[in-house]
């Protein structure tokens, strides 16, 4: 069950045995009768990632309008690290898409074109780590990432492999498996939609190949910071992997995870003929 739980044993803080036992029973009733003690021990080895988190660059941006000066600085750092080195074939694809978006903006600057409908689905992995607030649910069998903008990632840590190729298809979050190296969760993700989001112009996706593959190393640096090291590989679309380390910080001004991606309630920026068309009243 916990074959991949290796490394030093770290006592999980502020979690009583009673709570753990309840969790064991609630989350996995089928095994609670036979292995609850083992499961409690497995929980005790896991790091405590409880709390609510957000991308460091977004701190102070919670009005939804403007980034702080520090936020801008961090975003520029991230952007520089994230710039892909496309192969000639994929550079041509990127150039073509970007030109189309540029031309569409020039034709009607008041109504930005969108290439990524629908707008209100969850951000696809790896864009899951940017907008909104996040929670982590760490169990021996799975770590779950939940965001307020609708993204839920299931990272299986029970020792399984990715499914065979004939059982995989591209999804928003892809297929993620992980293992623990001490307090670091190492995640391997495949089978995402074969594309990467570019934040340029009004935003657009660039296609990638079926070799697109992500690795993450996720750890808590201190009580208020988590660090995620991403490696993005695609031997067909990229001439070299993309490496970036981003920081999530603990949210201290809010204590609830509230869904905020519900465009059906009052969507006044609908997409009409591929363009955002604001309804002032």
């Amino acid at each position, binding site marked *: 069950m916990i074959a991949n739980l290796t490394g030093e044993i770290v006592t999980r803080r502020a979690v009583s045995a009673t709570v753990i036992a309840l969790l064991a029973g609630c989350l996995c009733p089928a095994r609670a009768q036979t292995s609850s003690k083992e499961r409690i021990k497995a929980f005790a080895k896991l790091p405590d990632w409880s709390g609510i988190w957000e991308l460091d660059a977004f701190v102070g941006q919670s009005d*939804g309008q403007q980034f*702080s000066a520090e936020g801008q600085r961090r*975003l520029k750092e991230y952007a520089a690290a994230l710039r892909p080195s496309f192969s000639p074939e994929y550079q041509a694809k990127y150039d073509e898409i970007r030109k189309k978006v540029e031309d569409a903006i020039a034709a009607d600057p008041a109504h930005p074109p969108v290439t990524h409908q629908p707008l209100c689905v969850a951000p696809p992995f790896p864009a899951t780590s940017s907008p909104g607030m996040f929670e982590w649910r760490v169990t021996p069998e799975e770590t779950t990432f939940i965001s307020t903008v609708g993204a839920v990632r299931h990272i299986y840590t029970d020792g399984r492999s990715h499914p065979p190729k004939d059982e995989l298809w591209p999804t928003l979050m892809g297929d993620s498996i992980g293992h623990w190296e001490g307090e670091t969760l190492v995640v391997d993700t495949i089978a995402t939609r074969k594309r990467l989001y570019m934040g340029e112009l009004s935003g657009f996706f660039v296609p990638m190949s079926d070799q697109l593959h992500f690795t993450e190393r996720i750890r808590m640096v201190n009580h208020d910071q988590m660090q995620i090291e991403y490696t993005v590989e695609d031997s067909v679309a990229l001439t070299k992997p993309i490496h970036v380390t981003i920081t999530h910080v603990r949210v201290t001004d809010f204590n609830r995870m*509230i869904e*905020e991606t519900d*465009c059906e309630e009052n969507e*006044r920026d609908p997409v009409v003929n591929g363009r955002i068309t604001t309804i*002032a009243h």
Partner: protein
Amino acid sequence: MKRAVAALVGISMLLIASSALAHHSRAMFDQTKQVTLVGTVKEFQWTNPHCWIQVLVPDTKNPQAEPVEWGIEMGAPVELMRKGWKPGSLNPGDKVSIVINPLRDGQHGGLVVSVTGPDGRVIVRPAEVTE
């Protein structure tokens, strides 16, 4: 010079999708311009994906004319709540002064920059970002 989110979208981001991916671009607002509206709240919409203020603005040059309704787009409710807003922060009839970035298409609408509420308190003042 005030700079807004749009200043950042010229950068390749990949992981850092910005709010544009979760919601949408703000390029329909002219973020190089600011307009101040002084009027009366008609409706405060505490809704997803954005909150809106509908405000009636009298024509100061022609007080006899019907006031013009403007629609002011804000952030999502949870974003505003983290800034101290609540669903009852504004009510119909409240006198407000609102600074906006206007819509480019000429409609009476815009993106909120700041709001001075009926008690004179500034209830939104996003951080000024200099470049």
